[in-house]
């Protein structure tokens, strides 16, 4: 009779469950919010011509924070004219060295008021304070600091050629990293000598309008930066205005395509940073504990409201069970709740609309036959929250494996060979980012070469830096942000 071997003991772990609650650790500094935010045009805060405002709410409590000015086409026109005037009379002819000094000032002033901006960001957008405090705001300042130094060195960007600014640049940014996306857009545009008309996202206008105060404090010439808050029509007016000869958009692929269509009859230069459905690929020789940290960071950072989120986990079949078990243990200790609490890992979903979209896609995953798992953690009674969710038994044809969910939802697929991993990873219209986890250097380089994505994170995920170009292949857009490659997108090579 064959002797059955004793089963190995499961990995030991300390499970406290709900034995103790964390004490609340709320951030309490003053975000210095106003009851009403006007448009920032030509160096001043001005009421919208039609006098219309819309409320912005705290998605963690569903309470109103402030009224935000709604810019219409006439307001956008004023902003574009102010930008054009500033470009012709001051900014376009200012020596790069002087422009750079303004950008350095802006970087410094943002650092001075970092905590205030971080809190405002978290209140308005719902992201955990530790992310706005440790990532969004410092990184925004870093972008201004980096690009400040480029302003007098632009001739090095296109060797052998002359470069010149476009003039007025129209920019529309999303709600997932409101201040950081503003910095990614405004810093290179100004360093290159352009003036800017920027529309923040409808649900997250506050830090953009507060940035107007920074421009004033920096003594930035009037009209160099103009912020016009509003909804989709405001953004369309910015994109379509005849004075914006270059436009830059970050947002969904669907909206990006509609902008491209609407500008097809014009000579405008465009850059597009659109959606993604990144594969995060884990090989059997990967350092698994690090990989699990990377998977968690890849999909749950900023509630998954990240265009480059690692939303498709491709795990080698032989280690799939181990990885899944480790992943479940890890997400069990993620703290979902009050974004203002310093211990919170996942804050609020940005809006009810987004929560509905996530809920619908998760429902489609269940209906398509994938297996859903979530931590079952308690959620706050009010506000928009969603539990960290993972799907197993996912096939490539499921909507949750093809569509951008933009929420804390991970779809897990398996593969056997590197070739199959590449095939599955690239089998999407998107191509923004990808992750590779393996101990083998040559495999990393080969995978990186074969993955059709603009950013490849190897044994890491969701890392960003002003010096590092970011942007997509295929339907994830074109143009880069960051680095010398990104800056040149804000210049004409003449």
């Amino acid at each position, binding site marked *: 009779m064959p002797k059955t071997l004793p089963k190995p003991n499961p990995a030991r772990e300390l499970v406290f469950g709900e034995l103790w609650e964390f004490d609340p650790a709320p951030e309490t500094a003053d975000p210095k919010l106003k009851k009403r935010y006007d448009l920032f045009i030509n160096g001043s805060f001005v009421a919208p011509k039609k006098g219309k405002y819309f409320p912005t709410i705290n998605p963690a409590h569903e309470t109103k924070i402030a009224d935000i000015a709604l810019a219409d086409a006439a307001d956008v026109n004023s902003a574009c004219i102010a930008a054009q005037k500033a470009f012709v009379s001051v900014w376009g002819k200012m020596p790069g060295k002087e422009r750079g000094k303004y950008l350095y000032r802006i970087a410094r002033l943002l650092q001075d008021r970092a905590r205030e901006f971080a809190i405002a960001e978290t209140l308005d957008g719902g992201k955990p304070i530790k992310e706005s405090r440790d990532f969004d705001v410092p990184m925004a300042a*870093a972008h201004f600091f980096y690009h400040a130094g480029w302003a007098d060195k632009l001739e090095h960007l*296109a*060797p*052998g*050629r002359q470069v010149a600014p476009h003039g007025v640049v129209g920019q529309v940014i999303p709600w997932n990293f409101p201040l950081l996306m503003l910095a990614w857009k405004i810093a290179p545009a100004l360093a290159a000598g352009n003036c800017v008309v920027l529309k923040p996202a409808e649900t997250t206008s506050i830090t953009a309008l507060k940035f107007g105060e920074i421009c004033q404090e920096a003594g930035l010439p009037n009209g160099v930066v103009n912020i016009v808050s509003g909804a989709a029509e405001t953004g369309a007016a910015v994109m379509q205005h005849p004075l914006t000869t270059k436009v830059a958009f970050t947002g969904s*692929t669907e909206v*990006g*395509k*509609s902008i*491209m*269509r609407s*500008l*097809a*009859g014009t000579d405008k230069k465009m850059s*597009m940073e*659109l959606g993604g459905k990144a594969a995060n690929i884990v090989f059997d020789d990967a350092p698994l504990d690090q990989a699990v940290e990377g998977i968690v960071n890849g999909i749950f950072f900023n509630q998954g409201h990240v265009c480059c989120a690692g939303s498709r986990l491709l795990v080698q079949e032989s280690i799939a069970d181990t990885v899944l078990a480790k992943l479940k243990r890890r997400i069990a200790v993620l703290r979902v709740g009050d974004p203002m609490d310093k211990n919170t890992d996942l804050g609020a979903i940005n809006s009810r609309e987004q929560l509905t979209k996530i809920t619908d896609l998760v429902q489609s995953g269940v209906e398509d036959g994938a297996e859903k798992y979530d931590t079952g953690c308690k959620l706050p009674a009010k506000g928009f929250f969603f539990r960290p969710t993972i799907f197993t038994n996912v096939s490539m044809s499921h909507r949750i494996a093809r569509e951008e969910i933009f929420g804390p939802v991970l779809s897990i697929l398996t593969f056997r060979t590197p070739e199959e991993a590449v095939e599955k990873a690239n089998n999407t*219209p998107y191509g923004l980012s990808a992750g590779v986890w393996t101990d083998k250097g040559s495999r*990393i380089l080969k995978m*990186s*070469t074969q993955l059709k*994505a*603009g*950013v*490849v*994170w*190897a*044994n*890491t995920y969701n*890392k960003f*830096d002003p*010096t*590092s*170009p*970011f*942007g997509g*292949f*295929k*339907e*994830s*857009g*074109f143009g*880069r942000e960051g*680095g*010398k*490659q990104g800056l040149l997108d804000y210049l004409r*090579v003449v």
Partner: protein
Amino acid sequence: MPPRLHITKTPKCYVGGAFIRSESGRVTALHDASGAFFANIPQCTRKDLRNAVEAAAKAGPGWAKRSAFNRGQILYRLAEMMEARAVELTEAVALSGASKAEAARAVAASIERVVHYAGWTDKYEQILGSVNPVASAHFNFTVTEPMGIIGVIAPDDSPLLALISLILPAITSGNCVVALASNTQPYPSILLGEMLATCDLPGGVVNLLTGLRSEMVPTFATHEHLRALSGAVKEADRKTLKLGAAESVKRVHLLKAEEPIDWFADKMQGVEEIRALIEFKTTWHPVGA
């Protein structure tokens, strides 16, 4: 003895490394500047364009994998092939009325341009790529990659120099090309195909079609396997191409054919033209023990 009757050539398009007539069987009669019949040029169709894209898709991965050094040698070989048949190319360019001197200048500039790009194959990466000094403990570098298959639409004027100026930056970095030649002066593209066929360039890397721009532009615009469009076209076509490009977020790099373009200018060649048809890929890796 009566003078020998010379053998006329049947013009064929160079697609997938072979010489084809249009699947449609249609041709357009080409006349020289004096109005005399010269030859029948294939009038390619949308189906021919799709076939050409298929040929390019087959050739693409192999071409992109060739070493930069090898691509440079092949391009230089193209210059050798053109130089050897420069007289014939000059006659082809002069066919529609350009003076022999103008035609010779265009041919010389075309050959020089090929040599120019032959030298770029193993250098542009060092100009366009970068190692990026990120603030965290990561090694971070940006390299270029070809976009894939590029749709090229040549203008009517400068039938050789413009066509080759549009093709070269694309293939230098490992892209494949499906090109539509000048409508009014297609014959130089027929000759160019014969030189491409003998320069060690793998078949399918460059595919040259002749035909009506009005028929082909909508398919160039919407064909999803074309990842970028490059060319010199008039306003209405630019709009059609950009509208189609929006559907698959295609890259568009178009010059205005209704304005004079100095194809001889130095700025019509070089690393910025290569940059327009590549993607940047940035890779991060932790630095540690």
